[in-house]
């Protein structure tokens, strides 16, 4: 419940700021109309950038992968001895 209240207050603050910008013509009018759309597009771009950067810096652990494969083999051998069928088809 509290999280949605935070988001709502943030949205109300941003729209109040935008409307005050419309009233007092600090920026030329055509810019003020386009400002929310520009922010939405830049937010989407920022999300895409974070995904790309995270993909580039994702850490792979090669030794852990080898150890995991060994564990899988041991588990398969153990279960087959006990009579459970673990073949992948």
């Amino acid at each position, binding site marked *: 419940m509290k999280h949605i209240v935070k988001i709502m207050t943030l949205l109300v603050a941003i729209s109040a700021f935008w409307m005050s910008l419309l009233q007092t013509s600090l920026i030329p009018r055509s810019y003020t109309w*386009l400002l929310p759309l520009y922010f*939405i597009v*830049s937010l989407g*771009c920022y999300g*895409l*950038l974070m995904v*790309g950067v995270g993909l*580039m810096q*994702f850490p792979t652990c090669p030794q852990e992968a080898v150890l995991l494969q060994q564990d899988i083999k041991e588990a398969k051998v153990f279960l087959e001895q006990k009579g459970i069928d673990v073949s992948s088809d």
Partner: protein
Amino acid sequence: MELADRAVGFLLSLISVSIFTYYSFWVIILPFVNSDHFIHKYFLPQEYAILIPVFAGVTLLCFLSVFIGLVILKSKKKKA
């Protein structure tokens, strides 16, 4: 394997940075440039700067709602 991941990540960030710079140029800087400058050839008319994001947003919303509707229908069919 991680080279493919790195390439995809790099491509994604490149696309996002290029879209951001192109759009910023379009909306912020281009109205200040003279009408007969050569740079106007590389940018579409200014109405498209509004139409294309709105159209993309509406398409995304339609796609999401259709997808959710399909999932709900499929789950209802499986239960009945």
